[in-house]
């Protein structure tokens, strides 16, 4: 699949749950994404953290609609329960379900997209979208630095352990206070590594204006290794893009006629 098609899939899959209000359609879409990941045998590392995200969203949304749901309950709300002085409205819960299932659909769409897209795909697509060489270089470096500082952070943790400080053995309330012992060395390392990287780039004749241009000027277009060897496009991509456009227009029309409204409110 072409990197451009993948970018358009990202845009469409992120737009679908926002256009649709009916939680049933969004739930079907969310499970469809998960089934696709199973079919394509997508490998996702640290999947449990995404479940934490869904739990966080549940906490946000349901605390909000249960304890502070009056503003989304409409003019004539139906009280279904009372918790002390708090009245729980059925319309507010319906609203909460709609938003939560929408977020579930969005997160599952992001998971599917992340599982089928590599950094090279992303960079190749940016190149075709005429994002400037300089902006792409900085973005690629940022991705590289994440892994590097993650490793540096672990090294600092080990060094502090050797000095008798282990953040994980500290009580929960104390952890943030000892975080400074990790943060300050990491800041110093970051500045030093950035200067080293900049000097290396200069020695390899990297030149650009100080103000970043987001888009490439055509005459100065530079084709990178990634753009040359990772780029692919076939008739299947044209068909997929056409399908996405038709589906998008169809969804907008369905919304206009109220076919995707939330039946629980």
């Amino acid at each position: 699949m072409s990197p451009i098609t993948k970018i358009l899939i990202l845009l469409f899959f992120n737009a679908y749950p926002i256009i649709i209000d009916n939680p049933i359609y969004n739930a079907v879409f969310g499970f469809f994404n998960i089934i696709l990941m199973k079919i394509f045998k997508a490998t996702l590392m640290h999947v449990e953290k995404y479940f934490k995200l869904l739990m966080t969203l549940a906490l946000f949304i349901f605390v909000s609609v249960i304890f502070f749901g009056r503003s989304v309950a409409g003019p004539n709300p139906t009280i279904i329960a009372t918790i002390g002085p708090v009245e729980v409205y059925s319309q507010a819960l319906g609203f909460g379900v709609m938003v939560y299932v929408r977020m579930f659909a969005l997160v599952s769409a992001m998971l599917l997209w992340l599982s089928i897209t590599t950094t090279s795909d992303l960079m190749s697509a940016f190149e075709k979208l005429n994002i400037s060489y300089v902006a792409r270089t900085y973005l690629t470096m940022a991705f590289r630095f994440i892994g590097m500082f993650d490793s540096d952070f672990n090294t600092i943790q080990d060094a502090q352990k050797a000095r008798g400080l282990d953040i994980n053995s500290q009580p929960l309330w104390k952890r943030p206070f000892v975080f400074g012992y990790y943060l300050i060395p990491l800041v110093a390392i970051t500045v030093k590594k950035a200067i080293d990287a900049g000097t290396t780039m200069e020695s390899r004749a990297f030149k650009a204006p100080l103000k970043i241009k987001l888009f490439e000027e055509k005459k100065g277009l530079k084709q990178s290794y990634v753009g040359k060897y990772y780029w692919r496009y076939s008739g299947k991509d044209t068909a997929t893009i056409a399908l996405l456009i038709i589906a998008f227009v169809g969804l907008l029309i369905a919304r206009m006629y109220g076919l995707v409204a939330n039946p629980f409110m």
Partner: protein
Amino acid sequence: MGEVIRPKRTAATMGSILAAWTGICIVVGAYGSMSLPIGGYVSGFWPAMALQAIGGIWFGMWGVIVAFLFPIISDAIGEALPMYVAATLIPANFFQSWLGAWVFRRFKLNPELKTRKDWLAWILIACILQNAIGATLGTTAFVLWGLITWEAQPLFWAGWFIGNTWPAIVFGSLILKIATPFVKRTRVYVFPDWW
């Protein structure tokens, strides 16, 4: 005599600091949040805020760009938060870096926090006021997405504000005092310029 002369800034070094500062903010944001979790990724402690505020002061617009760029990468790529939701937090993250940077430049303050005026601007503007604005814009974005209701906004506002402000005051002050003399000798230190 005694004036520090720094080598000329180049796109290579400034681009490197942009990328590196983005990297450290993502790592610190992730580890910091995990050290005091409230539920999932909701945290009462977000030390990346200290780096957002300092980045704008030290590196000018390069730091401000990082402040709104890194949450998009960390939220969308790292935590699978939908990109449209992550993108609506740009104004909040922009203000959490730009305001302090602007005040330090506008009133010719010293990032090494040498005088009472420097301290007051840092604590009141760069830590408290800019976080209050950021929390207001951020939680309003959540309300507009339907993630929280208008009545619940003050509660989540308080969570955001407290979780961001105290790490900024504690770690931001420490880093500014300890690391500014080192960083100002390098050519990635942009202050008092913007670019």
